[in-house]
Protein backbone atom coordinates (compact mmCIF):
# COMPACT_ATOMS: atom_id res chain seq x y z
CA UNK A 1 0.00 0.00 0.00
CA UNK A 2 1.56 3.22 -1.19
CA UNK A 3 1.16 6.37 0.87
CA UNK A 4 2.44 9.94 0.70
CA UNK A 5 4.13 11.69 3.60
CA UNK A 6 4.34 15.47 3.83
CA UNK A 7 6.68 17.24 6.21
CA UNK A 8 7.19 20.98 6.61
CA UNK A 9 10.43 22.68 7.56
CA UNK A 10 11.14 26.33 8.24
CA UNK A 11 14.24 28.43 7.77
CA UNK A 12 15.04 32.12 7.51
CA UNK A 13 17.50 33.47 4.99
CA UNK A 14 18.43 36.59 3.11
CA UNK A 15 19.03 37.02 -0.58
CA UNK A 16 19.36 39.57 -3.34
CA UNK A 17 18.05 39.11 -6.87
CA UNK A 18 20.89 40.14 -9.14
CA UNK A 19 22.35 38.77 -12.37
CA UNK A 20 25.78 39.52 -13.75
CA UNK A 21 24.29 39.29 -17.24
CA UNK A 22 22.76 42.77 -16.85
CA UNK A 23 24.08 46.14 -15.76
CA UNK A 24 22.97 47.84 -12.55
CA UNK A 25 20.17 49.80 -14.19
CA UNK A 26 18.66 46.76 -15.88
CA UNK A 27 18.93 44.70 -12.69
CA UNK A 28 17.09 47.44 -10.86
CA UNK A 29 14.42 47.66 -13.54
CA UNK A 30 13.91 43.89 -13.64
CA UNK A 31 14.08 42.95 -9.97
CA UNK A 32 12.85 46.19 -8.37
CA UNK A 33 13.29 46.34 -4.60
CA UNK A 34 14.41 42.70 -4.59
CA UNK A 35 17.64 44.13 -6.06
CA UNK A 36 18.38 46.41 -3.08
CA UNK A 37 22.15 46.22 -2.51
CA UNK A 38 21.98 44.94 1.06
CA UNK A 39 19.40 42.26 0.33
CA UNK A 40 16.28 41.32 2.25
CA UNK A 41 15.01 38.19 3.95
CA UNK A 42 12.18 35.71 4.14
CA UNK A 43 10.85 33.11 6.49
CA UNK A 44 10.76 30.19 4.08
CA UNK A 45 8.55 27.17 4.57
CA UNK A 46 9.63 24.03 2.71
CA UNK A 47 7.16 21.19 2.37
CA UNK A 48 8.61 17.86 1.31
CA UNK A 49 6.40 15.10 -0.09
CA UNK A 50 7.83 11.58 -0.16
CA UNK A 51 6.10 8.34 -1.01
CA UNK A 52 6.58 4.65 -0.49
CA UNK A 53 5.01 1.41 0.55
CA UNK A 54 3.75 1.39 4.11
CA UNK A 55 5.91 -1.02 6.07
CA UNK A 56 3.50 -3.58 7.57
CA UNK A 57 5.64 -3.88 10.69
CA UNK A 58 6.06 -0.17 11.49
CA UNK A 59 3.05 1.36 9.73
CA UNK A 60 5.41 3.94 8.25
CA UNK A 61 6.41 5.09 4.77
CA UNK A 62 9.69 6.00 6.39
CA UNK A 63 10.80 6.95 9.84
CA UNK A 64 10.09 10.65 10.35
CA UNK A 65 13.14 10.90 12.56
CA UNK A 66 15.28 9.82 9.62
CA UNK A 67 13.67 12.43 7.35
CA UNK A 68 14.10 15.12 10.00
CA UNK A 69 17.74 14.22 10.54
CA UNK A 70 18.34 14.32 6.79
CA UNK A 71 16.62 17.72 6.55
CA UNK A 72 18.60 19.07 9.47
CA UNK A 73 21.92 18.02 8.01
CA UNK A 74 21.33 18.80 4.35
CA UNK A 75 18.83 21.67 4.36
CA UNK A 76 18.47 23.54 7.63
CA UNK A 77 22.09 23.56 8.76
CA UNK A 78 23.14 24.82 5.33
CA UNK A 79 20.36 27.35 4.62
CA UNK A 80 19.00 28.67 7.92
CA UNK A 81 20.21 32.18 8.81
CA UNK A 82 22.43 32.42 5.76
CA UNK A 83 22.62 34.66 2.74
CA UNK A 84 21.52 32.42 -0.13
CA UNK A 85 23.67 34.36 -2.60
CA UNK A 86 26.80 33.18 -0.79
CA UNK A 87 25.99 29.47 -1.22
CA UNK A 88 27.57 27.40 -3.98
CA UNK A 89 24.14 26.52 -5.34
CA UNK A 90 23.58 30.15 -6.28
CA UNK A 91 27.07 31.03 -7.46
CA UNK A 92 25.84 30.95 -11.06
CA UNK A 93 22.08 31.19 -10.58
CA UNK A 94 19.84 33.96 -9.29
CA UNK A 95 18.55 33.10 -5.83
CA UNK A 96 14.90 33.14 -6.84
CA UNK A 97 12.60 30.69 -5.12
CA UNK A 98 12.18 28.95 -8.48
CA UNK A 99 15.88 28.07 -8.38
CA UNK A 100 15.70 27.35 -4.65
CA UNK A 101 12.94 24.81 -5.37
CA UNK A 102 15.17 22.97 -7.82
CA UNK A 103 18.07 22.95 -5.35
CA UNK A 104 15.90 21.62 -2.52
CA UNK A 105 14.53 18.95 -4.85
CA UNK A 106 18.08 17.96 -5.80
CA UNK A 107 18.99 17.65 -2.12
CA UNK A 108 16.03 15.48 -1.13
CA UNK A 109 16.46 13.22 -4.14
CA UNK A 110 19.31 11.73 -2.12
CA UNK A 111 17.08 10.81 0.81
CA UNK A 112 17.46 7.04 0.82
CA UNK A 113 14.40 5.87 2.76
CA UNK A 114 11.54 7.05 0.50
CA UNK A 115 10.86 8.37 -2.98
CA UNK A 116 10.78 12.15 -3.36
CA UNK A 117 7.56 13.25 -5.06
CA UNK A 118 7.77 17.04 -4.95
CA UNK A 119 8.83 20.10 -3.00
CA UNK A 120 6.63 23.05 -2.15
CA UNK A 121 8.22 26.29 -0.94
CA UNK A 122 6.36 29.26 0.51
CA UNK A 123 8.43 32.42 0.20
CA UNK A 124 5.73 34.62 1.73
CA UNK A 125 2.12 34.01 2.71
CA UNK A 126 1.17 35.15 -0.81
CA UNK A 127 3.74 33.32 -2.96
CA UNK A 128 4.52 29.65 -3.26
CA UNK A 129 6.35 27.36 -5.69
CA UNK A 130 6.09 23.67 -6.52
CA UNK A 131 8.58 21.44 -8.30
CA UNK A 132 8.15 17.76 -9.04
CA UNK A 133 11.26 17.16 -11.13
CA UNK A 134 11.26 16.56 -14.85
CA UNK A 135 8.17 14.38 -14.83
CA UNK A 136 4.74 15.90 -15.21
CA UNK A 137 3.02 15.73 -11.82
CA UNK A 138 -0.09 13.58 -11.61
CA UNK A 139 -3.34 15.51 -12.19
CA UNK A 140 -4.62 17.16 -9.06
CA UNK A 141 -1.40 16.78 -7.06
CA UNK A 142 -0.39 20.42 -7.60
Amino acid at each position, binding site marked *: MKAYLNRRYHFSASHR*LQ*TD*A*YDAAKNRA*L*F*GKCNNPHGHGHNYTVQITVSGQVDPATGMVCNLADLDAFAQENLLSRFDHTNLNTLDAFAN*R*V*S*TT*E*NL*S*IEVYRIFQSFPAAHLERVHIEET*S*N*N*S*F*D*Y*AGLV*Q*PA*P*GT*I
Partner: protein
Amino acid sequence: MIFLTRKAEFSSAHYYWNDAWSPEKNQQVFGKCANRNGHGHNYTLEVTVAGEIDPVTGFVVDLKELKDILESEGRQRLRPPSPQPRSPRVQGRHPHHRKHRHRHLAPPRQQIPNAKLHRVRVYEMPDLFADYYGEP
Protein backbone atom coordinates in the same frame (compact mmCIF):
# COMPACT_ATOMS: atom_id res chain seq x y z
CA MET B 1 8.65 22.76 -14.85
CA ILE B 2 7.99 25.05 -11.91
CA PHE B 3 4.53 25.79 -10.58
CA LEU B 4 4.15 29.27 -9.13
CA THR B 5 1.16 30.28 -7.01
CA ARG B 6 0.11 33.81 -6.17
CA LYS B 7 -2.63 34.61 -3.68
CA ALA B 8 -5.08 37.53 -3.48
CA GLU B 9 -8.00 38.26 -1.20
CA PHE B 10 -11.33 39.93 -1.79
CA SER B 11 -14.66 40.21 -0.04
CA SER B 12 -17.94 39.77 -1.84
CA ALA B 13 -21.61 39.01 -1.32
CA HIS B 14 -23.83 36.49 -3.07
CA TYR B 15 -26.81 34.23 -2.70
CA TYR B 16 -27.79 30.99 -4.37
CA TRP B 17 -30.92 31.02 -6.47
CA ASN B 18 -32.22 29.18 -9.50
CA ASP B 19 -34.96 31.11 -11.29
CA ALA B 20 -36.28 27.90 -12.80
CA TRP B 21 -37.36 26.72 -9.36
CA SER B 22 -40.03 27.86 -6.94
CA PRO B 23 -38.96 29.85 -3.87
CA GLU B 24 -39.77 26.79 -1.77
CA LYS B 25 -37.51 24.56 -3.82
CA ASN B 26 -34.71 27.15 -3.71
CA GLN B 27 -35.00 27.23 0.07
CA GLN B 28 -35.06 23.44 0.22
CA VAL B 29 -31.97 22.95 -1.95
CA PHE B 30 -29.84 25.94 -0.99
CA GLY B 31 -31.00 26.48 2.61
CA LYS B 32 -29.80 29.69 4.20
CA CYS B 33 -27.54 30.36 1.20
CA ALA B 34 -30.77 31.30 -0.64
CA ASN B 35 -31.64 34.16 1.73
CA ARG B 36 -32.52 36.91 -0.72
CA ASN B 37 -30.57 39.66 0.99
CA GLY B 38 -27.40 37.68 0.40
CA HIS B 39 -24.45 36.98 2.62
CA GLY B 40 -20.73 37.52 2.30
CA HIS B 41 -17.38 35.82 2.45
CA ASN B 42 -13.74 36.75 2.62
CA TYR B 43 -12.54 34.93 -0.46
CA THR B 44 -8.96 33.92 -1.17
CA LEU B 45 -8.02 33.45 -4.79
CA GLU B 46 -4.96 31.41 -5.73
CA VAL B 47 -3.71 31.36 -9.29
CA THR B 48 -1.06 28.77 -10.22
CA VAL B 49 0.93 29.12 -13.43
CA ALA B 50 3.46 26.66 -14.80
CA GLY B 51 6.57 27.28 -16.85
CA GLU B 52 10.30 26.86 -17.19
CA ILE B 53 12.85 29.03 -15.42
CA ASP B 54 14.47 31.78 -17.46
CA PRO B 55 18.19 30.95 -17.13
CA VAL B 56 19.19 34.62 -16.82
CA THR B 57 16.57 36.03 -14.47
CA GLY B 58 15.75 32.88 -12.50
CA PHE B 59 12.07 33.73 -12.92
CA VAL B 60 9.28 31.69 -14.41
CA VAL B 61 7.21 34.85 -14.50
CA ASP B 62 7.68 38.23 -12.90
CA LEU B 63 5.59 37.92 -9.73
CA LYS B 64 4.70 41.59 -9.92
CA GLU B 65 3.17 41.06 -13.37
CA LEU B 66 1.15 38.15 -12.04
CA LYS B 67 0.08 40.24 -9.07
CA ASP B 68 -1.04 43.04 -11.39
CA ILE B 69 -3.08 40.58 -13.48
CA LEU B 70 -4.77 39.26 -10.35
CA GLU B 71 -5.52 42.82 -9.29
CA SER B 72 -6.95 43.90 -12.63
CA GLU B 73 -8.67 40.69 -13.76
CA GLY B 74 -9.66 39.15 -10.47
CA ARG B 75 -10.16 41.50 -7.61
CA GLN B 76 -11.35 44.56 -9.48
CA ARG B 77 -13.93 42.60 -11.45
CA LEU B 78 -15.21 41.16 -8.19
CA ARG B 79 -15.29 44.29 -6.09
CA PRO B 80 -18.60 44.97 -4.37
CA PRO B 81 -21.16 46.60 -6.66
CA SER B 82 -22.43 50.07 -5.90
CA PRO B 83 -25.99 50.16 -4.53
CA GLN B 84 -27.24 51.95 -7.64
CA PRO B 85 -25.98 51.23 -11.16
CA ARG B 86 -23.57 53.99 -12.12
CA SER B 87 -23.00 53.28 -15.77
CA PRO B 88 -24.67 51.51 -18.68
CA ARG B 89 -22.11 48.72 -18.26
CA VAL B 90 -23.61 47.59 -14.97
CA GLN B 91 -27.24 48.53 -15.57
CA GLY B 92 -29.55 45.63 -16.08
CA ARG B 93 -27.33 43.08 -14.37
CA HIS B 94 -29.16 41.12 -11.79
CA PRO B 95 -27.06 40.67 -8.67
CA HIS B 96 -27.55 36.93 -8.66
CA HIS B 97 -25.31 36.69 -11.71
CA ARG B 98 -22.53 37.01 -9.24
CA LYS B 99 -23.10 33.51 -8.00
CA HIS B 100 -21.53 32.23 -11.19
CA ARG B 101 -18.40 34.32 -10.98
CA HIS B 102 -16.15 31.54 -9.73
CA ARG B 103 -15.99 30.28 -13.28
CA HIS B 104 -14.70 33.56 -14.62
CA LEU B 105 -11.80 34.14 -12.28
CA ALA B 106 -9.11 32.65 -14.48
CA PRO B 107 -6.90 35.33 -16.01
CA PRO B 108 -6.84 35.10 -19.78
CA ARG B 109 -4.06 32.67 -20.63
CA GLN B 110 -2.47 34.89 -23.24
CA GLN B 111 -1.78 37.55 -20.61
CA ILE B 112 0.78 35.46 -18.76
CA PRO B 113 4.05 35.53 -20.70
CA ASN B 114 6.29 32.43 -20.65
CA ALA B 115 3.86 30.41 -18.55
CA LYS B 116 0.50 28.74 -18.80
CA LEU B 117 -2.35 28.80 -16.38
CA HIS B 118 -2.37 25.56 -14.38
CA ARG B 119 -4.98 25.91 -11.67
CA VAL B 120 -7.36 28.33 -10.05
CA ARG B 121 -8.27 27.72 -6.43
CA VAL B 122 -10.92 29.77 -4.63
CA TYR B 123 -11.32 29.57 -0.89
CA GLU B 124 -14.76 30.65 0.23
CA MET B 125 -13.56 30.23 3.79
CA PRO B 126 -10.45 28.57 5.18
CA ASP B 127 -12.12 25.16 5.38
CA LEU B 128 -13.85 25.22 1.99
CA PHE B 129 -12.26 25.64 -1.40
CA ALA B 130 -12.72 24.60 -5.02
CA ASP B 131 -10.10 23.87 -7.71
CA TYR B 132 -10.48 24.30 -11.44
CA TYR B 133 -7.92 23.06 -13.98
CA GLY B 134 -9.82 24.04 -17.12
CA GLU B 135 -11.16 21.59 -19.63
CA PRO B 136 -8.67 19.17 -21.24
